[in-house]
């Protein structure tokens, strides 16, 4: 489990995160949603330790991550898999080399074992035939899947996704959503997804946290979200005709 206890973060006079407390559970997909500028990216980067928080605690399992020094954090970081918005694949390396990278850096596997593990990860994301291609030669959806394969290469305990469906068509988004859900169950990870894709929210949102003006505004499941009476959340979630009609039909 990952627990956030009263975390706050400011950039000079701009208070971006205000006293946020949340729990992200194991084996479930935990979604952070909110409007652009609400602070959800800062929240995700704070959880990851990219931003240093001003107040509060971030706890991974039993370890207070926010109070660790860099050397101690390295140990936790090896248990984290992160999929960035653009994939963040290394352009000069092949798909196989990208997936093998964390293994070459942090495992004591032989080359053969590393290749076997990388191939397993690529098969898991249905990309076994793309191993020799470069990121520039594959589609955006495939790049996201390679990034997922790289993120799971070291069997992480914690998986983070920043806008996993941005720039993808609806069909590919569903493939990615299902993949995230399946991997969360298979690897029993604490999965945290930063998104404003409402389809993901409805389809895979086990636990949802709505961030509004830097505060935790609402938490609940996707079923609860569809019935919410919260004004700000309703305005955000049901902003489109499609979402309003889904709510009506439910």
């Amino acid at each position: 489990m990952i627990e956030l206890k009263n975390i706050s973060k400011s950039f000079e006079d701009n208070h971006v995160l205000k006293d946020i407390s949340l729990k992200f559970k194991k084996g479930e997909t935990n979604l952070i949603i909110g409007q652009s500028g609400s602070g959800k990216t800062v929240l995700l980067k704070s959880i990851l330790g990219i931003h240093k928080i001003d107040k509060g605690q971030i706890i991974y399992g039993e370890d207070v991550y926010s109070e660790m020094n860099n050397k101690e954090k390295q140990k936790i970081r090896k248990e984290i898999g992160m999929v960035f918005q653009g994939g963040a694949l290394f352009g000069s390396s092949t798909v196989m080399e990208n997936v093998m990278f964390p293994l070459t850096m942090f495992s004591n596997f032989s080359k053969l074992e590393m290749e076997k593990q990388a191939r397993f990860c690529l098969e898991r994301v249905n990309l076994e035939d793309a191993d020799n291609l470069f990121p520039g030669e594959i589609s955006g959806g495939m790049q996201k899947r390679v990034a997922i394969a790289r993120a799971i290469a070291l069997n992480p305990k914690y998986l983070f996704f920043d806008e996993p469906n941005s720039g993808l068509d609806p069909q590919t988004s569903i493939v990615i959503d299902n993949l995230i859900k399946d991997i969360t169950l298979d690897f029993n990870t604490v999965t945290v997804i930063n998104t404003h894709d409402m389809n993901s929210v409805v389809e895979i949102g086990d636990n949802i946290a709505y961030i509004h003006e830097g505060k935790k505004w609402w938490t609940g499941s996707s079923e609860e979200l569809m019935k919410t009476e919260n004004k700000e959340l309703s305005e955000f979630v049901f902003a489109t005709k499609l979402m309003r009609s889904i709510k009506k039909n439910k």
Partner: protein
Amino acid sequence: MNFFYHIGKYILFMRKIIKKPQKTNIFINDLFFEIEKIGINSIVIVFIISIFMGAVITLQTAYNIEQAFIPLYLVGLGTRDSMFLEFSSTIVGLILAGKVGANIASEIGTMKIREQIEALDMMGVNSESHLVFPKVLAAIITFPLLTLFSMFVGIFGGYLAVYLTNAIPVDDFIYGIHYYFIPFYITYSVIKSVIFGIIISSISAYQSYYISGGALEVGKASTKAVVYSSILILFFNVVLTQILLS
């Protein structure tokens, strides 16, 4: 204040770079890759610049010696000492600031805006050391070799110039090349090239490592990398000359 802020930040950046590699075999692979990119891929440009530089120095010196009492072998000596003392290290350094510096800045800058550096950090990789240390070490190894290569090619360029134009007799030129040779000039030039290599690789990496935004910022970082590297090369050229030759 901004100047001192950047000096402090640069020192901290360098402290993060010079760390024991997390995986030696990956570091060695990266080092050879960078030696190829920074060193071997610069051979042609260094050859072209040096051969023409040597030829022009020779011809200009020859055409400026009109008085009969000045021995003609001074043309060869002048070409040799100009190449050894200044041109092969400083001018080649300035050219490489453009080629290698811009290349490093655009590579790291692009990685930065595409979140690849954050990805490395998130994996627990010391991104500064992983990305920049092989480049700095490759520059330290290859720049002196390129400088020595430039000396040789420059003198050959001078030889070709006198051979093809008959500006002075070839024998006088060759005598001048051998005349009163001071081996320390080579050491001096090699020391300068090592410092220039460190300046170009680290300043270019520093300029691009902390950018945020998009492609425009990568372009700006590349320009700054070349400008600041060039200014520092000129500054340290004076400092090192005073220290080593005084």
